[in-house]
């Protein structure tokens, strides 16, 4: 039985204004092609590049900003690693500059404990909220999702633009906070009360205002993504014909939509604590600096933790799911066969999204929870590992029998699998309260989550950059330097983070600005369970690996910009010979994306279909006897 697309009458064959006068869409208030008729005036530079409502421009805006923020966050980390390896020693090269810019906190070029704490808090905040989420969700999502589903743009283009500008403002607020008296936020990216309220800096208030702006940006983006995926799928693009990347973004958007508001509420409450001197999170009898604080009391620090982690845990799935989506697309494309277990992938990602809302208190085992509630959260945490493993397994099995092309995106996608595997597996002991009681707030945790996000998500994002670059620019990135970037990053990432597992198991705690020197055997000889020299010495090792990791990014940065003008031009609109819709557009896609609305009659991954003329069939190719049924 042939598939038809009868349930969706094509709403528009070629753009005409004949009898649809009153449906004139006001969203496109700048130039767009109408089969050759250029009826609107050419927009100015500002309308085109700064105040654009085109999802592709917005995607690139998000992407560039996010990469810049990630570079900045990386820099903060290098400064921290210096301090950890060489406590109280002036930072080479940058020391005088730090002192000049930041003043007292960096006197003589030495990173003071307060400055270290603010670097720590801002590194986390910037990497998560200004780096990875905007890149993984907003940048790639904005650019690729409408193309992949056959839509002309996002459902609400102006809301999309507003969401980018809110993100930009939030970033500005966060950066500005470094320069105010007292410095940036210092209470960790988790901003626990009462510390966050009692630190004598306005940086915490700036952090909260920045967070409110960033959360607003994400909420607007989430509404847009969900509405777009539900409403603007091209005729015939049923749910089970969506590329897995779209499913991943869909679930991510839902997580952002429903999990962020409690943090916004909590942020508002903490802002009230900071500015209006309320006591939402401040307990009665709180003493600061030896004196009873002049507050009403009656609040609960645990309340902040619950509200924070209610977002905090789903947030980590926001970080990983888009990357899993990218990895799936790249693997399928470079093995020339459909993904193994498409249905399992879809149901798993939906299940992960749902469960992610009820596991949060595994970040709070140390707060004196009772057995029953701890058991509940341990159970849900263990259960949520199942769909995650299913997703990873499907991606692994997809390699079997594939005709593998080892290009740069594929290298990153392949590396993602074991790296995320390590990150995920090391999370299991953390999900169990007895083991977590020991490992909590040690370097084991740092190693665990960095493995999932750094050689995990970020590798997925690199794969995405190399993969979709030709569609965005019409040129390929340099393959040789791509491989240099990959191998160096892969090796040095592991050297940076693997030793941290050992340090954590040995008991080295996190957020210590002196690199645990105060707990070392060298400092207090004869005391029990101090950290041996070998563990402390690893800090030097990690510092040099981190610097090398930074150097390894230079070829990538150069490659991204150099290839725009000098990269190898693509031979066709579909250089990777992919089936998904974004490759069936001109390069780069024009405003409105598709000249004629695509009619979909196939699944997303028709590679190596027996009897077909080529080893891939684009998703918008007309249905024929060999088309796969909508499953």
């Amino acid at each position: 039985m042939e598939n038809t697309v009868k349930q969706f009458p094509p709403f528009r064959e070629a753009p005409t204004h004949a009898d649809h006068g009153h449906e004139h869409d006001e969203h496109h208030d700048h130039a767009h092609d109408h089969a050759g008729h250029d009826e609107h005036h050419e927009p100015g530079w500002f309308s085109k590049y700064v105040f654009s409502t085109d999802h592709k421009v917005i995607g690139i805006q998000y992407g560039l900003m996010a990469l810049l923020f990630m570079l900045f966050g990386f820099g903060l980390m290098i400064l921290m690693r210096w301090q950890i390896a060489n406590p109280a020693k002036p930072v080479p090269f940058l020391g005088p500059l730090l002192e000049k810019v930041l003043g007292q906190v960096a006197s003589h070029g030495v990173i003071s404990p307060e400055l270290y704490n603010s670097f720590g808090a801002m590194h986390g905040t910037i990497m998560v909220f200004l780096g990875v989420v905007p890149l993984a969700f907003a940048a790639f999502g904005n650019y690729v999702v409408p193309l992949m589903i056959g839509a002309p743009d996002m459902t609400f283009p102006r809301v999309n633009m507003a969401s980018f500008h809110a993100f930009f403002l939030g970033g500005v607020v966060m950066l500005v906070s470094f320069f105010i008296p007292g410095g940036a936020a210092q209470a960790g990216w988790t901003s626990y009360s009462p510390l966050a309220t009692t630190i004598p800096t306005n940086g915490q208030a700036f952090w909260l205002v920045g967070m409110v702006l960033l959360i607003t940006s994400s909420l607007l983006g989430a509404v847009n993504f969900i509405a777009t995926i539900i409403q603007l799928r091209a005729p015939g693009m049923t749910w089970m014909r969506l590329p897995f990347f779209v499913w991943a973004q869909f679930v991510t958007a839902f997580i952002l939509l429903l999990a962020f508001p409690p943090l916004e509420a909590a942020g508002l409450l903490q802002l009230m604590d900071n500015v209006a001197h309320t006591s939402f999170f401040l307990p009665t009898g709180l003493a600061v600096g030896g004196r009873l604080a002049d507050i009403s009391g009656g609040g609960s620090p645990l309340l902040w933790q619950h509200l924070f982690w209610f977002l905090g845990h789903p947030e980590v799935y926001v970080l990983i799911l888009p990357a899993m989506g990218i990895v799936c697309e790249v693997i399928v494309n470079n093995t020339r066969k459909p993904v193994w277990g498409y249905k399992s992938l879809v149901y798993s990602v939906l299940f992960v999204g749902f469960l992610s809302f009820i596991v949060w208190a595994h970040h709070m085992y140390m707060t004196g929870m009772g057995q029953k509630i701890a058991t509940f959260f341990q159970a849900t945490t263990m259960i949520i590992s199942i769909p995650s493993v299913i997703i990873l397994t499907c991606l692994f099995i997809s390699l079997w029998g594939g005709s593998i092309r080892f290009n740069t995106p594929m290298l990153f996608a392949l590396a993602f699998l074991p790296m995320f595997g390590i990150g995920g597996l090391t999370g299991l002991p953390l999900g169990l309260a007895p083991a977590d009681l020991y490992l909590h707030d040690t370097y084991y945790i740092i190693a665990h989550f960095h493995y999932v996000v750094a050689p995990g998500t970020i590798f997925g994002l690199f794969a995405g950059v190399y993969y979709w670059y030709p569609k965005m620019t019409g040129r390929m990135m340099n393959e040789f330097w791509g491989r240099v970037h990959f191998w160096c990053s892969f090796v040095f990432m592991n050297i940076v983070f693997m030793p941290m597992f050992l340090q954590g198991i040995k008991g080295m705690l996190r957020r210590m600005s002196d690199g645990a020197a105060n707990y070392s055997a060298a400092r207090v000889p004869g005391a029990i369970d101090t950290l041996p020299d070998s563990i402390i010495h690893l800090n030097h090792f990690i510092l040099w690996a981190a610097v090398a990791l930074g150097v390894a990014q230079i070829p990538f940065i150069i490659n991204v910009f150099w290839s725009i003008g000098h990269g190898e031009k693509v031979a066709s609109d579909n250089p990777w010979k992919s089936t998904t819709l974004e490759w069936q557009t001109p390069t780069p896609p024009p405003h409105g994306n598709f000249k004629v609305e695509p009619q979909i009659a196939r699944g997303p991954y028709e590679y190596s279909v027996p009897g077909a003329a080529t080893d891939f069939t684009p998703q918008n190719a007309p249905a024929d006897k060999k088309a796969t049924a909508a499953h």
Partner: protein
Amino acid sequence: MSESKSVDIKSTVRLCGVVLFVIACTTAMMIKISFLPFGWPLKVTFILGVAAVNAFLVASYLMHLLTEKKMVFIVGFFTVCFFISLMGLTLWAMQDFPVGTTH
């Protein structure tokens, strides 16, 4: 057009009048309950129950949720689930702690 049902002002005004009247009555009921000499847990339960009825009326008739499409219900269902988890699990967590460790 979002719905194809026919609407007219007169019947809507009648419906609105009924809804307004019911809201006024339920509000009065809540106020009366709050002044009764029972313990607070019982009173709070009743008052919130009546408020829920009020909310149901506003949502169903004024927001025409009763005739809304499945997609909206699905979104609403999951939202309610997550809201209940947030409030319920947080309260449970605050109540469940090892005996003797706090005041």
